[in-house]
């Protein structure tokens, strides 16, 4: 059994860990509010963008001449996966959830004999994937320096993807990120951005008759690259809210666990102290009796 001194030391150590996790939880909660706000503020832009593109693509009759970003390169051989994770750890299952999702997708691609290329955004994703998929990772981007998620970072990633697409380095591009549902639940998502998937193809009725100036395809050519950046920006915003939420609940759990542990250790400490006292008493009494 551990000595009284050891127990005391352990209690202090657990208590100070608890203080740290508690502080981290507070910080995450404050950051979460901000991140959530900006994720919500960013939604109108991406929604509107999506609607306009939907309207435009419905108005394009000649699908063959549609821009490649919309229609794809006609092949399905090389898949580019953009895995978006955080730059910091201690946020529960946040990063592992994304990489788990991504890994199952990688497996599917490789099993079907297609070529795989990976871009990681955020250093944690790179750390987790580099062991098994080192040879597939072609780029690793991290925005450790920028304090807040901003559009120009997203634009940089978007431009890089488009450049690679125009060079014919891949045919299909999918991004992986965590969608923020609430503080406790974040859903890892895969979203195909090139070629663009129009999910709402069912409601053909509300096709608006728009005037276009200049022509549809010219507008689309201008709009589609922006849409890529916007989608990535949206993913980054969702990710940062999810990261903080996940960290908050992870730290909350850690604080609670530490509390339980302190309780258990204190009981053990008190018991062994009592045992020591009893032992001493017995010694004194039996000493006195033998006289």
């Amino acid at each position, binding site marked *: 059994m551990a000595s009284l001194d050891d127990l005391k030391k352990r209690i202090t150590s657990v208590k100070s860990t608890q203080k740290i996790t508690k502080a981290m939880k507070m910080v995450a909660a404050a950051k979460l509010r901000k991140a959530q706000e*900006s994720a919500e*503020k*960013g939604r*109108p*832009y*991406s929604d*509107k*963008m999506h*609607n*306009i593109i939907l*309207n*435009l693509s419905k108005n394009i009759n000649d699908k063959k001449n549609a821009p490649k970003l919309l229609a794809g390169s006609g092949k399905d051989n090389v898949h580019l996966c953009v895995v978006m994770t955080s730059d910091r750890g201690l946020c529960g299952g946040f990063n592992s959830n994304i990489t788990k999702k991504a890994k199952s997708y990688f497996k599917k691609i490789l099993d079907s004999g297609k070529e795989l290329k990976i871009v990681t955004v955020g250093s944690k994703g790179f750390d987790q994937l580099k062991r098994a998929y080192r040879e597939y990772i072609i780029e690793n981007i991290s925005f450790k320096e920028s304090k807040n998620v*901003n*559009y120009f970072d*997203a*634009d940089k990633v978007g431009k890089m993807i488009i450049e690679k697409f125009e060079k014919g380095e891949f045919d299909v591009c999918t991004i992986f990120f965590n969608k923020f549902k609430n503080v406790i639940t974040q859903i890892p998502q895969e979203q195909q951005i090139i070629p663009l998937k129009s999910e709402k193809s069912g409601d053909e009725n509300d096709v*608006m*008759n*728009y*005037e*276009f*100036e*200049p022509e549809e395809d010219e*507008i689309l050519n*201008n*709009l589609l690259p*922006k849409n890529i950046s*916007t989608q990535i*920006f949206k993913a980054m915003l969702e990710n940062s809210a999810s990261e903080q939420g996940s960290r908050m609940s992870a730290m909350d759990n850690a604080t609670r666990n530490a509390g339980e542990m302190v309780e258990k250790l204190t009981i053990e400490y008190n018991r062994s102290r009592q045992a020591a006292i009893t032992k001493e008493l017995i010694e004194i009494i039996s000493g006195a009796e033998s006289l």
Partner: protein
Amino acid sequence: MSDSFNLEIVNPEKLFLSLDNVSEVVVPAFEGDMGILKDHISIISFLKPGIVKVFTGNEVKELFVEDGIIEFSENSLSILTSRIIDVKEIKKDDLSSMINEANEALKDENLDDQKRFLANQKIDVLNRLN
């Protein structure tokens, strides 16, 4: 009957401006400035760098946009732009840094005509504000 319509300006970070009593908006569309009044035909167009003028009652608001897409339908106008600044709040330093940025971009030999045109346009507008 009022002659006003709705206007929403959004940038990636937030809803920049939302008004429901706009009487006229002049936007720097790619093929020339375009004035939009109530009951304009539904239109989608994209913008070149320039000044968006928003008329509400007797007030005129001027905003510098770097690029953007506009959509007008059923008397509501949406402007999506990646960078927008109120002309009144624009600072001299920002102006010169944006001009430098555009000049840097022009140095690229491989720039296509459209991008070159847009960059030149941006410099023109910024110089006028300066």
